[in-house]
């Protein structure tokens, strides 16, 4: 019945002993993702928006804080988007080049979203996995801390922080980082509870693998599917959150700007017919958020264990 080693060897030699590259679950998921047209198109759009934020500044003819005094008072007919004046997106109310400002705003909004999601992924996943793996009293204490933090009205605290410590990008990142990991910790903990009872974790424990390594090697990789999906859906939420803060006038400090701040400014001049001041920032805002949601959806479909 049993193939004896000699035959195994000869068969293996016959097969040239070429090590067959296995198809990991990640490779499977990638293939499913690439079959999802909406997700792929969204990914391309996201890449374009990212390129716009990174390299758009090279195309801009003006600095983002340069005030074009020749336009003041005649914004309505001289500040319109045009190729002749090199104000591709027109100018804002103070005569600054809207193209340069949109580039900067997109960059800051993306950064806020990605930093928030990164904090959530790193802190939230490790925190939740640790709480779930050790369980019992450790779990109880760690998750009650999360509950307490969640029950604090964060918008209120963040606004207070921005008022007391001054408005800066660092404060904004800090505030967003403080909130974003809480939900992720809960999700990661719930998943860990199901994974830690799987036999491969028990095997690792029985073999004598250190608990830290069990979490990093066996639990976190199996959590990542859900974590990644949640993170991509978190990025647009963070962008919206930041926009809301900026819309209230508490976000990024001038002359730096974000999409939310630009939309805020644009909305106040909309009634005078300066449509471009809201149209361009809003376009990038909506496109980015839609693209993130579609990519998140695509990832969820690709990584969903039910499809396997």
């Amino acid at each position, binding site marked *: *019945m*049993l*193939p004896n*080693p000699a035959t*195994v*060897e000869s*068969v*293996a030699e016959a*097969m040239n*002993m*070429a*090590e*067959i*590259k*296995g*198809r*990991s*679950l*990640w490779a499977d998921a990638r293939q499913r993702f690439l079959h999802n047209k909406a997700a792929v198109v969204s990914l391309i759009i996201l890449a374009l928006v990212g390129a716009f934020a990174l390299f758009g500044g090279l195309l801009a003819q003006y600095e983002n804080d340069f005030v074009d005094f020749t336009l003041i008072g005649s914004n309505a007919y001289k500040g319109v988007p045009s190729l002749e004046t090199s104000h591709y997106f027109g100018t804002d109310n103070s005569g600054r080049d809207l193209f340069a400002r949109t580039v900067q705003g997109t960059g800051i909004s993306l950064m806020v979203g990605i930093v928030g999601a990164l904090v959530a992924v790193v802190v939230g996943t490790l925190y939740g996995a640790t709480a779930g793996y050790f369980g019992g009293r450790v779990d109880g204490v760690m998750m009650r801390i999360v509950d307490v933090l969640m029950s604090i009205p964060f918008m209120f605290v963040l606004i207070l922080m921005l008022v007391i410590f001054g408005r800066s990008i660092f404060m904004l990142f800090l505030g967003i980082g403080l909130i974003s990991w809480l939900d992720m910790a809960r999700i990661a903990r719930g998943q860990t509870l199901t994974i830690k009872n*799987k*036999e*491969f974790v*028990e*095997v*690792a*424990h*029985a*073999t*004598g*693998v*250190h608990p830290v*390594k069990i979490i990093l*090697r*066996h639990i976190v*990789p*199996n959590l990542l599917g859900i974590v990644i999906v949640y993170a991509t859906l978190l990025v647009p939420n963070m962008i919206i959150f930041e926009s809301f803060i900026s819309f209230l006038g508490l976000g990024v400090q001038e002359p730096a700007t974000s999409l939310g701040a630009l939309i805020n400014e644009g909305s106040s001049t909309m009634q005078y017919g300066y449509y471009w001041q809201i149209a361009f920032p809003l376009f990038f805002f909506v496109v980015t958020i839609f693209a993130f949601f579609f990519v998140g959806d695509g990832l969820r479909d690709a990584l969903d264990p039910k499809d*396997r």
Partner: protein
Amino acid sequence: MSPILSVRDLSVTFDVRAPGAWPWTPPGKLHAVSKVSFDLASGECLGIVGESGSGKSTLARAIVGTIPSSGGNILFEGADLANMDPRQRRVHRRDVQMIFQDPLAALNPRMTVGDIIAEPLITHEPKTPRAEVKARVRTLMEKVGLLPNLVNRYPHEFSGGQCQRIGIARALILKPKLLICDEPVSALDVSVQAQVINLLMDLQRDMGLSMIFIAHDLSVVNHISDRTLVLYLGCVMETADSSILTTAPEHPYSQALIASVPIPDPVLERARPRPVLEGELPSPLNPPSGCVFRTRCPKVQLSCADKRPALTDLGNAHQVACPFHAATQLLSVQP
């Protein structure tokens, strides 16, 4: 020769809280394994049988150390595994390895087969050069009958039997002294079962392994193990050489177990008388007083409720935990 493993009065209890109970109410005690003792000689294979819920797997996990024991000693080569601090225990884990029931669930789906097999080696000998790790993984894969060029594949690309071979390779890479198999073939179909069992027997002979083999299939246990231990509700009922146990069981529970093995001939199967065990396994939360088997025993006496019967030696390493076993004359009086 001193035994490689001797388990003395090993007990495992779990605290069980009724849902919605107050935090300060004392939890109920679930006696999964109570005062089990046995010896395992070097190179020997001990089979453990019993119905579901009899504590077979809990016993195995307590020996391996994934479940803490609540009393007794596990002496492995003289060192007491049960009362060691976690760090010391981790060092000792290399000599005792385990194979699990569900072959696919025991393999991390995100790791390649090569990484899975190499994990114990990397854990206990982290300084081994990569080339040597790779070489040892390959030789071991050949040994368990897997093509070594499959090292970079993932567990979901293998069949159940192949997955079990991967699990065996992982358990053997550190050349352990004791291998515990927790129903390693129950999840496989019959033809693959035979392959895996023969593989285990070959490996045991070649590597001089001591084994504990858990199964609920008596014929499988009889085939592979030298001695067999019958467990009921966490208590040892009978230990004997496998051949003796299957032909001349002494304990009423063992007799019922043996009698329940189907005969692969419909005529004989229908014709034979069958001592039917009535009722269910009693709750381990509240085990019967005295002999735990008395609630279902066909030969129950009044005195059975008084105290738990000790294992009596019938010679030839045959031990029975029943004063009214088949060899005594008393039984013929009681119908």
